[in-house]
């Protein structure tokens, strides 16, 4: 098992190197003269030259890269122009909000999609199967921001069941003490059920929005891989040996069918982290996505680049987890390591 983790870690290293190189390149291809941009419109040529030297832009590319990497190593992602805050602290404080939303969306999606996909495959051609197909096709066709707005209209404006889509807590509630950064968990730890209820109410609709989006690929993959496993020869053998349908479906088919689903999770995460940005904008969610969007609008590049880098690193780590989980389930992957 340790060998597996080590080998997977080793494969993550080139990805991380690639990510750092790409984000470095993205900082160097900014339109126009970066130094002039940072100096502001009224700056003198002298001031621009000074800033260029200060930013290290007068050095050669390899030197700049070394500077960039050593700054990264110290956790220095630059500072936001509009707030003056270091990007790394802003990202660190806003990350739990994004993580809570994304995880809630993912868990919701998994809880709905997997049983749905299994049911569709086991009862192929039934109404469950047909509705599964309709929902998954619709799910991938719906722009996530549009789903969010529709849900807001229905559950907030029409039915009044959900609170206004304005962040993690309504204006009158106070945030729970910061332990994990996840409001749901922190409020429970603090024993503050009122805050728990309030933050849950705020979370449900945005999480549902993400879940609808992530549900489609998971359900689709579950159904497809269940179908292929159910028609496989070892399932036929298990049936010919008289095992109960429950044992055949859960122990023989489901565990094998989960392997491609776990692989798909990598792609789902990619979609989710992207969709998260849009959902945060719709629901004014104070995560790193809306931080990046605000920075984009004011052409404040350091936060955007910090955001891209943080997301990429997060994503590489998530893929690492997926790989390890895969190795735990599949003995063949363990043997390869």
């Amino acid at each position, binding site marked *: 098992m340790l060998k597996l983790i080590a080998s997977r870690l080793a494969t993550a290293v080139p990805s991380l190197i690639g990510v750092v190189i790409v984000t470095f390149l993205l900082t160097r291809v900014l339109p126009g003269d970066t130094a002039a941009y940072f100096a502001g419109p009224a700056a003198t040529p002298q001031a621009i030259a000074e800033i260029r030297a200060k930013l290290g832009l007068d050095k050669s590319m390899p030197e700049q890269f070394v500077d960039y990497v050593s700054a990264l190593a110290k956790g220095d992602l630059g500072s936001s122009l509009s707030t003056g805050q270091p990007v790394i602290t802003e990202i660190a404080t806003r990350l739990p909000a994004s993580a809570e939303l994304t995880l809630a969306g993912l868990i919701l999606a998994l809880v709905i999609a997997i049983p749905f996909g299994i049911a569709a495959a086991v009862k192929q051609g039934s109404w469950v199967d047909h509705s599964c197909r309709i929902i998954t096709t619709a799910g991938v066709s719906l722009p996530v921001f549009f789903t969010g707005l529709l849900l807001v209209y229905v559950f907030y404006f029409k039915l009044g069941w959900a609170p206004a889509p304005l962040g993690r807590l309504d204006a009158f509630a106070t945030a729970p003490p910061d332990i994990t950064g996840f409001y749901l968990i922190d409020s429970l730890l603090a024993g503050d059920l009122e805050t728990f209820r309030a933050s849950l109410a705020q979370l449900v609709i945005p999480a549902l929005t993400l879940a609808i989006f992530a549900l489609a690929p998971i359900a689709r993959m579950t159904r497809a891989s269940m179908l292929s496993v159910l028609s496989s020869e070892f399932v036929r053998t298990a049936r010919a040996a*008289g095992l109960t349908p429950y044992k055949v479906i859960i122990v*023989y088919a489901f565990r094998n069918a989960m392997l491609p689903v776990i692989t798909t999770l990598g792609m789902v995460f990619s979609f989710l982290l992207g969709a998260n940005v849009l959902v945060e904008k719709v629901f004014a969610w104070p995560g790193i996505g809306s931080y990046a969007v605000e920075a984009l609008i004011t052409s404040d590049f350091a936060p955007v680049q910090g955001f891209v880098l943080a997301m990429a690193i997060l994503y590489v780590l998530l893929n690492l987890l997926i790989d390890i989980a895969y190795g735990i389930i599949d*003995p063949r992957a363990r043997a390869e390591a």
Partner: protein
Amino acid sequence: MHGVIDPATADLQPKEEAHGKLLEVKDLTVEFVTRNGLVKAVKNVNLTVAKGETLGIVGESGSGKSVTSYTVMRILDRAGRIAEGSIAFSGLDIAHAPESQMRDLRGREMSMIFQNPRAALNPIRTVGRQIGDVLMHHLQADPRNVKEKVIDILNQVRIARPEERYHAYPFELSGGMCQRIVIALALACRPQLMIADEPTTGLDVTTQKAVMDLVTELTRERGMSTILITHDLGLAAAYCDTVMVMEKGVVVETAPAEQIFRNPQHPYTRKLMRATPRPGITLKDLLPESEASSSTSVPFPLPNPPPQAGEGAGDALSVGDPLPLAGEGREGAAASAADIPLLKVENLLKEYPRQGVTGSFMSGLLGKKGDPKDTIFRAVDGISFEVKKGESVGLVGESGCGKSTTSTIVMRLIDPTAGKITFAGEDIGAIPAKDFAHHPMRRRIQMVFQDPTESLNPRYTASRAIADPLLRMGGMSGGAKMRARVEELASMVGLPGDLLDRFPHQLSGGQKARVGIARAIALNPDLVILDEPTAALDVSVQAVVLNLLEELKHKIGMSYLFVSHDLHVVKLLCDRVIVMRQGRVVEEGTSEQVLEAPKDAYTRELLSAIPHPPV
């Protein structure tokens, strides 16, 4: 050893009859719902299996033999259903039994082993637990003693080190061992009936013999009945008491094994029987009587008289080959043809990096270096042989023996690690494979591939496929002349002209094989490598194709290097045979020598392992 009918069992028969039949299928018709409406896969089938009897169901692809057995187990897939007829198993009405009762029956009273043993096992569950699942389900074991019982069963199917193998995953075991596990699964609860569906297809002959002997022994020991489903008459002959022959969903003949081989009644049985290679026959004997008597299976409206073997086959090409046909090697060949080897392979060596060690980026980066013995695998280990002009040489061995690698190297599609390949006096081994496409020698070495379907571009018509070599290397650029040549080639291989405009998916297996052969001989090559050219074909088609190849050889005067796993098939076509094992040549000699008086123990093992109908 594995006698056709054991006198002991023959004696038992009447007594068993008295006990009644274990399985009785009456008038069974099975339908499948397809896009083209209802299709009857099995029509009015009747069969009985007595206690302790082994019934062989023999047929070619699409004969309905598997559907019949799936119906008995009631594990047809969703689209299939029993339209008519009854199935009685120990007096129970299978066709109408509730599913819960069937579940109880499956595994305990009747069980099944399947074709591809590796696919038949759950890849991510240890084999011990898979056998345990069946035992516990049928209450033959409880959680406390299940491991002990499983190990006992593993012992019975001759799995060495069963305690260790209990924890093995299927991918850690060989194909033959996986099939033993599948047998263990099927026999775990001592059922009364076992259905074996092509249990050894895809296994090597020696493994096949070991597996079949084990099945026979275990089922006899327990007085079980067996249904063996196979396309191989030889296998059925060797292991069954009664044989039932099916064709297109219909039973054409049922008789005791001995009788069906000695005196087949139905024309289809006779055809199948004749087409099955067996010792002591010639190629012509494979063809149905009617065709064998006339000299060819297909009419050959050849415009030119066929050239003599060894003379250089220039004439047949006169239809539009502007190039002088032969290189230096061909001139004056007639005189000394017999002495000069066309192909000479010396000390051929091919090494591969072992799987799993290939160029891992990180291990390269970290400078990990292993022992070369661990990292290098020798597929071909220093072999030498010759093929003379006009001669057919068979290269025989089981999977992984290096025969295909050897032929691919000789074909100059991959480069050898070391060794020399001389063809018509030129050292072609020195020419890198990637440059060989443009070498003048290219047209003189051609190949017929194993899988006729896969060897044809799905987007090329038959005529386009045959024309390809003519366009690339024959100096033709289309037009009536080329069309004429393509039609000529088609008639040479017996492909009706109206099929030339069809795409591969519109052709049958045999027709596709003919297209592949026409393409290979289009430029009158000196050497054609036949890579298991009939392995994907039914026996009756194989018989025709083998005869066609033999005929073409004499017409065009080619040499063959015939790569195959089946010594009997090789013998029919080849003058000399080379037996390979683990990358080396273990025996070489004329076909008669090797087949009738094998010197090497491995050759003898191979020969005795091939089942065949009584001669």
